[in-house]
């Protein structure tokens, strides 16, 4: 035994703490890449990375969401330089941005509408996963990370909506923070703790601003995990069949990049048209009235993207149960990989599950409609039916359909899938462009 080591001589093994080298590049890039392998990783993961040939435009939304997130952060940074998170000055500072700051109106309208378009894209992204079974083995962890991102998006969007300190900001914040008072015994204490005061006011606005920023960057962090996981498990595709050889795949660049570019441009085009010609269409006019604790608006409604969950909250007569239902209506998505245990991924080969998913989409829009209406009469009934289907979809339909559904005959490979599709043996939408 050596004097300076706890290992016996025969236990020694060579080590390489110095891993410099191995770059396929030369020159300055090679010198850097030998020491920090970013160029190699980029080439490997974004240029040569193999993706299934069959990806349709639904697969553009990942990239689209990334663009939304980046632009939200850039515009948010610019807004943050002029915004004042104080109950007395918030509304004024937003008006100052809209009137006097150079291109302030453009930056604020972009930020506002991007938030809405971020949700449009994320809903389509989630629909894609539901329809093509992207949540199944081996992509469960990606799915869970995605749901985490969705929860964080909800939180940060809610906090962001309070910042202009208009009537809906103030009353929305009051209603939502008050939901915590439904927790037995400690509820009231928690609400006071959240507010930092005995009502929603200056203290609450200050922390909402800080948390709005914090959560935005937490999202970035989880998105990094989501993307790393994607590069380990690889993309799903409309056939739901794993690629076997290079006949089934294309390289990420230029094939996927050129296709994603088209998807992104169409999305940006629609976004810019809405932002420039109807910038306040997706918002609520009451938010241009400064917050006034003495006047309650006739209807307090959340932003459009929260309406389905708001409808679920109001469908339950008990406040605590309503809050639990609302939170679980999203959390339950996380159980889907285990509730739906069918070995077939894609709905293309699952005739019954396909119908269930379409009904689920309709249910989403039904609940969205109900959420915007007063909670009374027919709307309450519709809201309850919608809520029941929402949960039944996961708890009852997913396992039952997995058990009893007879999948359609499936091709052996992606190449064969494309062949069948060309011959009209497979009926599916055509988003391939």
């Amino acid at each position, binding site marked *: 035994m050596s004097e300076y080591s706890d290992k016996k001589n025969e236990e020694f093994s060579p080590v390489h703490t110095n891993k410099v080298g191995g770059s396929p590049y030369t020159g300055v890039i090679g010198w850097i890449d030998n020491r920090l392998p970013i160029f190699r990783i980029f080439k490997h993961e974004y240029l040569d990375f193999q993706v299934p040939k069959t990806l349709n435009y639904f697969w553009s939304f990942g990239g689209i969401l990334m663009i939304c997130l980046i632009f939200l952060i850039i515009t948010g940074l610019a807004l943050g330089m002029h915004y004042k998170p104080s109950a007395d000055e918030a509304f004024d500072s937003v008006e100052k941005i809209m009137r006097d700051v150079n291109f302030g109106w453009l930056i604020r309208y972009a930020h506002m509408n991007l938030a809405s378009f971020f949700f449009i894209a994320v809903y389509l992204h989630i629909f894609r996963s539901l329809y093509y079974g992207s949540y199944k083995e081996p992509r469960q962890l990606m799915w869970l990370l995605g749901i985490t991102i969705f929860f964080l998006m909800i939180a940060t969007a809610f906090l962001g909506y309070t910042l202009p300190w208009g009537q809906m900001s103030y009353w929305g914040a009051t209603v939502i923070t008050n939901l915590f008072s439904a927790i037995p015994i400690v509820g009231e204490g928690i609400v006071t703790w959240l507010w930092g005061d005995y009502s929603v006011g200056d203290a609450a606005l200050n922390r909402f601003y800080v948390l709005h920023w914090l959560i935005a960057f937490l999202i970035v962090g989880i998105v990094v995990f989501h993307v790393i996981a994607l590069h380990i498990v690889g993309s799903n595709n409309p056939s739901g069949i794993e690629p076997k050889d290079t006949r089934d795949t294309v390289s990420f660049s230029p094939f996927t990049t050129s296709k994603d570019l088209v998807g992104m*441009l169409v999305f940006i085009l629609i976004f810019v048209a809405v932002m420039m*010609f109807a910038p306040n269409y997706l918002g609520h006019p009451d938010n*241009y*009235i400064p917050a006034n604790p003495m006047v309650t608006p006739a209807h307090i409604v959340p932003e459009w993207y929260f309406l389905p969950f708001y409808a679920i909250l109001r469908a339950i007569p008990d406040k605590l149960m309503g809050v639990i239902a609302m939170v679980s209506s999203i959390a339950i998505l996380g159980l889907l990989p285990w509730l739906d245990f069918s070995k077939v991924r894609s709905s293309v080969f699952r005739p019954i599950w396909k119908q269930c998913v379409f009904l689920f989409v309709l249910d989403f829009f039904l609940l969205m409609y109900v959420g915007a209406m007063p909670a009374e009469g027919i709307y309450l009934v519709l809201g309850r039916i919608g809520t029941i289907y929402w949960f039944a979809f996961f708890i009852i339909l997913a396992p039952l359909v997995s058990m009893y559904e007879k999948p359609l005959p499936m091709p052996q490979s992606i190449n064969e899938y494309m062949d069948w599709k060309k011959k009209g043996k497979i009926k599916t939408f055509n988003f391939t462009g």
Partner: protein
Amino acid sequence: MKNILKTLIIALIFTSPLNSAENKTKLLEPNWTFDGFFGKFDRASLQRGYQVYKEVCASCHSMSYLSYRNLGEKGGPEFTKQEVKAIASQYEIQDGPNQEGEMFMRPARPSDKFVNPYPNANAARVANGGAYPPDMSVLVKARKGGADYVYSVLMGYTEDVPEGISLEEGVYYNKYMIGNKIRMPKPINDGSVEYTDGTQATEEQISKDVVAFLTWAAEPHLEERKKTGFKAVVYLLILTILGFIIKKKIWLRIEPKV
């Protein structure tokens, strides 16, 4: 994808708060020059609108987010520099403290904010039978229906109150106001102001002018926004077509017959 987008857009239209059934009476919809993709303000109308605000509205309604200089800025009423100076100097504002520590009054300058008619909100309430005349800087954006709504309310006063509606002292009936009751007496009649440019000062004309002015006040960059927006959309449309051609070309390498 098109179908999905269509469904989504239709769902948005249905669920949009703008469409929730609260205001049952159909609003008046005059042809605004600032509507549509190429919308622009009519300068003369904005200038007349300012006159209406000054002579009719300003005695009760503040416009605290506007400065006199805004009246001369591009995309607005575009008064000349001299006119803006002259407009501002008609008002007195408190300034100070000076070197002796005294507050003093001086004529307003273009950089000053519009002078409030009341020293504070309570004074405004007392003077108006308990109702606070809302600030008009962003009024048009703060009402469902926007310019149409404000115009309709101005035009919606009527003498024949429907049966079953009882009006308290100092409350007026209005066809378009939410709840149909308003504490503001009919502000605009034929000839409420005297136009110097020969325009007939009818009730409709005055209402149209002042609502155009209020729309500009709420959205001073509207013209710039629509102009830039049109350019951006055209640019993106071309870029999208080019992008699509490039994509087609690249994908021909692996699907030559499609």
